[in-house]
């Protein structure tokens, strides 16, 4: 199919978008009456939080990007499926409970708890903004392609329109309970992807092996084994490291551990999230190879050089135009929800951490904070639109891989060390976060993706994903700086906090019956 407007698909698309937004408004009204905005968060159940976590995590990258990568390069795309999942056990085992036990609002609060606030907040803001920016680019590229496929608009116009819609959504409705947005979206996405995979499998007698065999028959046995994308072994390891450790450094994921009652619920919710996400990534095996066999690589590439439209094209092939409209709407709702969450956390960082705490030293009234937060949202949207256009033709799963590399280098080392190592000092954490962010951004800029694909020049740094260099570098900076300039007072405070970290906040007697 060429990129042209189609009334049936568009009608279904608009109906489903309107429906999902309506449900969101209804759900957020319902939760608002139940309790105050923040405390209502503490009543989120493990299953709900698990779905919300899964919703946050299964962004356009997972659905559009991985399906596209698998369709274009077979097995190589699956490395992303698997890598995105294995971060979750790390979060469960290392991060979830201590984070919840500290009883704060963001991961920056945990790092800053026994260190000096201002320098930590500045450093962490820079890292978080870089992560949010790359994550946003990926969503913009995905959304731009979807709108282009559906409405037949030029890519640049599509990105601009999508950016403006998202801006309006965040400005006017962004503060509505994002937990519900994510829960509804997760259910829609899991349902839509399962249905799509089921329709694909029906064509192969419900035997996945027959599907894989057909793929191998059409494009050679190479599609079932590692190939071109990971031709460089070090690049493969680097990507693996970034995907695995990045999950534990994503600001909007870490925030979700504060919406539940206690460490036990936090733990269970990660269990649910892992189950949902794992199931979803198993589906991407089917979707990717299905698109490869049923649509063919050439047709997918003709629509978008990044392969991002494999899943929507597949839905049209197996379910017709209405199904395309449905799947496109699910993907778009996914992007909208993720972007809203990202834009909000980015705006919060800019207005709360940087403007109020650092520039105004904590002195700013409600009105001023609100104005700054809105300005920050507009600024972020403008940056996202510009970069979304610049990164046209990149695969969105790959782009999110870069966001993971930044998260793994900038946030993960400081967070883990602040929880497990008493010797970490303010300067150590600060240097680690800044060096992690700057080195990752620099190496991405020097990588083949920017230099060869976008600027058409020579790459100065050979790896497409810099994680293998920047993650150890960031850890080393934190340890070396902390050792060279130890701060005994900060170490003493760690001893006080260690009990709280592993046991949890002492609850007032009778406040909550033991479960």
């Amino acid at each position, binding site marked *: 199919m060429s990129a042209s407007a189609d009334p049936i698909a568009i009608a279904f698309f608009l109906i489903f978008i309107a429906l999902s937004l309506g449900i969101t408004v209804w759900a957020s009204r319902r939760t608002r009456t139940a309790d105050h905005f923040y405390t209502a968060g503490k009543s989120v159940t493990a299953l709900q939080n698990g779905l919300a976590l899964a919703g946050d995590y299964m962004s356009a990258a997972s659905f559009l990007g991985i399906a596209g990568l698998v369709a274009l390069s077979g*097995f190589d795309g*699956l*490395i992303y*499926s*698997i*890598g995105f*999942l*294995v971060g*979750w*056990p*790390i979060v*469960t*085992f290392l991060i979830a*409970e201590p984070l919840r036990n500290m009883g704060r609002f963001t991961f920056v609060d945990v790092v800053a708890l026994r260190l000096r606030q201002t320098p930590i907040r500045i450093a962490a803001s820079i890292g978080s903004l870089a992560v949010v920016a790359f994550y946003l680019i990926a969503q913009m590229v995905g959304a731009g392609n979807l709108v282009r496929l559906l409405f037949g608009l030029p890519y640049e116009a599509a990105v601009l329109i999508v950016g403006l819609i998202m801006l309006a959504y965040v400005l006017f409705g962004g503060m509505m309970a994002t937990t519900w947005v994510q829960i509804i979206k997760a259910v829609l996405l899991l349902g839509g992807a399962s249905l799509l995979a089921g329709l694909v499998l029906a064509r192969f007698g419900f035997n996945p*092996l*027959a*599907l*894989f*065999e*057909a*793929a*191998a028959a059409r494009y050679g*046995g*190479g599609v*079932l*084994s*590692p*190939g071109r994308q*990971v031709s460089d*072994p*070090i690049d*493969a*390891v680097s990507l*693996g490291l970034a995907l*695995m450790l990045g999950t534990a450094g994503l600001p909007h994921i870490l925030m979700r551990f504060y919406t539940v009652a206690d*460490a*036990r619920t936090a*733990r*269970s919710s*990660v*269990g649910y999230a*892992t*189950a949902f996400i*794992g199931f979803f*990534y*198993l589906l991407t*095996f089917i979707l990717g190879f299905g698109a490869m066999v049923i649509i063919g690589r050439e047709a997918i590439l003709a629509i978008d050089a990044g392969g991002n439209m494999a899943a929507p094209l597949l839905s049209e092939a197996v379910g017709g135009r209405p199904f395309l409209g449905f799947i496109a709407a699910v993907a778009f709702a996914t992007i909208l929800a993720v972007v809203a969450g990202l834009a909000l956390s980015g705006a919060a960082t800019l207005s709360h951490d940087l403007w109020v705490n650092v520039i105004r030293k904590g002195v700013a009234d409600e009105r001023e904070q609100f104005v700054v937060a809105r300005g920050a949202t507009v600024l972020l949207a403008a940056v996202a639109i510009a970069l979304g256009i610049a990164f046209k033709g990149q695969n969105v799963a790959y782009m999110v891989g870069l966001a993971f590399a930044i998260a793994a280098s900038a946030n993960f080392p400081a967070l883990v060390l602040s929880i497990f190592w008493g010797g970490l000092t303010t300067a150590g954490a600060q240097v680690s976060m800044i060096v992690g962010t700057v080195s990752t951004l620099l190496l991405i800029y020097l990588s083949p993706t920017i230099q060869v694909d976008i600027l058409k020049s020579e790459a100065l740094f050979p790896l497409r994903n810099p994680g293998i260099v920047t993650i150890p570098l960031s850890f080393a900076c934190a340890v070396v700086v902390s050792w060279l300039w130890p701060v005994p007072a900060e170490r003493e405070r760690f001893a006080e906090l260690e009990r709280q970290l*592993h*046991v*949890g906040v*002492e609850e007032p007697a009778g406040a909550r019956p*033991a479960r």
Partner: protein
Amino acid sequence: MMVIYFGFILLVAFDKPLLGTQLLPGLSLGMLLGVIVILAAWILTWVYVRWANQHYDVSVRELKQ
């Protein structure tokens, strides 16, 4: 988990022909291992959550008293 995943990634990085071995028509060793890694992440998380909810929390509660 890290060991399982890194074993897998190192195989991807350094021994591509091995992973390309076809066990059955349509099923290569790499694909099978990929599915196993996902299932392993599932099972390990589940076992940990069960263990922590049943044993770890009890010990923590005793510590508090």
